[in-house]
């Protein structure tokens, strides 16, 4: 029997190893799997490379993982956000690496990673500092820059609904990077607010097919990052 549901977040993240590359869903707080990230902090893996659009805010979630010096390198498009202080401080001290990637190139590199495409050519960033040193090619008189796919050992993703096959549905703009990150990671670990019976999700409406998902854990009432930040909360509590 296939059952991807695990009982708790500790079990969900137990095999994440030092030096792993981990994709973390979310655009700001929308779609950030905060309970899985906190479980990863408790679990202790370090020297991580994190692929995520932002770098978290306050001292919870992704920002807390960075504050605990578990992250060697961030691959992201926008490391500064309101209430984002942890990453900027470490970056200025030279204690964390940054690979800055245009947002659409970041998305396509992840998509390519999941789709078995090692690299692709894009018009984005041509003629800018972010294309320096990269291979370019001209197609139909337009210059494109080559970008490599990104793959990960793990993805931590937040969804709204999941079934035991790992089929997923997301909530509004919290979908963002979740679906493509599930495809590009060897082990996609999902926290979902609801676990539903097989067949409860209309097959026409499945957003992430279960084949891309390894583990699902139920988090009924996920924490809201901005609320925790407003309350000056820090993880670990």
């Amino acid at each position, binding site marked *: 029997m296939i059952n991807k549901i695990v009982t708790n977040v500790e079990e969900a993240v137990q095999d994440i190893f030092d030096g792993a590359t981990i994709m973390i869903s979310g*655009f*700001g*707080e*929308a*779609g950030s799997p905060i309970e899985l990230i906190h479980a990863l902090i408790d679990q202790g893996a370090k020297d991580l490379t994190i692929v995520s*659009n932002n770098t978290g805010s306050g001292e919870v979630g992704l920002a807390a993982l960075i504050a605990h010096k578990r992250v060697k390198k961030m691959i992201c*498009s*926008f*490391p*500064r*956000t*309101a209430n984002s202080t942890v*990453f*900027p401080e470490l*970056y*200025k001290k030279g204690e964390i690496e*940054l690979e*800055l*990637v*245009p*947002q*659409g*190139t*970041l*998305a*396509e590199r*992840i*998509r390519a990673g999941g789709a078995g495409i090692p690299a692709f050519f*894009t*018009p*984005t*960033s*041509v*003629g*800018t*500092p*972010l294309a320096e040193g990269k291979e370019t090619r001209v197609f139909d008189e337009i210059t494109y820059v080559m970008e490599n796919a990104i793959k990960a050992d793990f993805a931590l993703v937040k969804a709204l609904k999941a079934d035991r096959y790992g089929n997923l549905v*997301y*909530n*509004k*703009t*919290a*979908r*963002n*990077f*979740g*679906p*493509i990150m599930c495809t590009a990671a060897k082990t996609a670990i999902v926290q979902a607010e609801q676990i539903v019976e097989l067949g409860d999700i209309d097959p026409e409406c499945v*957003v992430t097919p279960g084949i891309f998902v390894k583990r699902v854990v139920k988090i009924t009432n996920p924490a*809201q*990052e*901005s609320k925790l930040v407003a309350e000056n909360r820090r993880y670990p509590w």
Partner: protein
Amino acid sequence: MVNELKEGWDVNQMAQKVALDIPDGSYVNLGIGIPEKVAAFVPEGREFIYHTENGLLGMGPVPAKGQEDPELINAGKKAVTAIPGACYFHHADSFTMIRGKHIDVCVLGALQVAENGDLANWSTGEPGAIPAVGGAMDLVAGVKTIYVITKHITKTGEAKIVKNCSYPLTGKAVVNRIYTDLAILDVTEKGLKVIELAPGLSFEYLQSVTEAHIFQ
């Protein structure tokens, strides 16, 4: 050089001028900040569909106080609403819409625009600054028409419409039209053509506050 600083259009008038130039039925992406004001001036009888690159087509206005949903936000991470007929999608699809030239118009702010349409709007290149690019480079590379809305000169009196950008570029030769508080300028093969001057302003005055060469 004319020393007297003329008033020109205010930000709302600039946004209204942009809105008037967007055809009915356009798919539109508005950058964060001043560009967002364009949505308030859609001319009667026209329908635009707003795209936000974090995964929503059919973005509606800001929700009533207390109705904000932290999982329904725009690219500036502010709470928004979804109109009837809206749809959500993941990031690779969202940038397929952008890079694949499906979005008709994007309105962006600028640090500098050069006379050939080069745009700098993501970094001042200051040492020690945290670089952050977001979706700006994808938008200028992919959207069919790029409008820039910006003050004509900086708060400290420096030209923003320049011969060559000194800040790191967002994209090369990507801007189609510039809306400032003093004028509307088209990027043409011959340089910057003045389409409209703010009331009471002379061409000579505009040239005196514009580093780039302009023509009428």
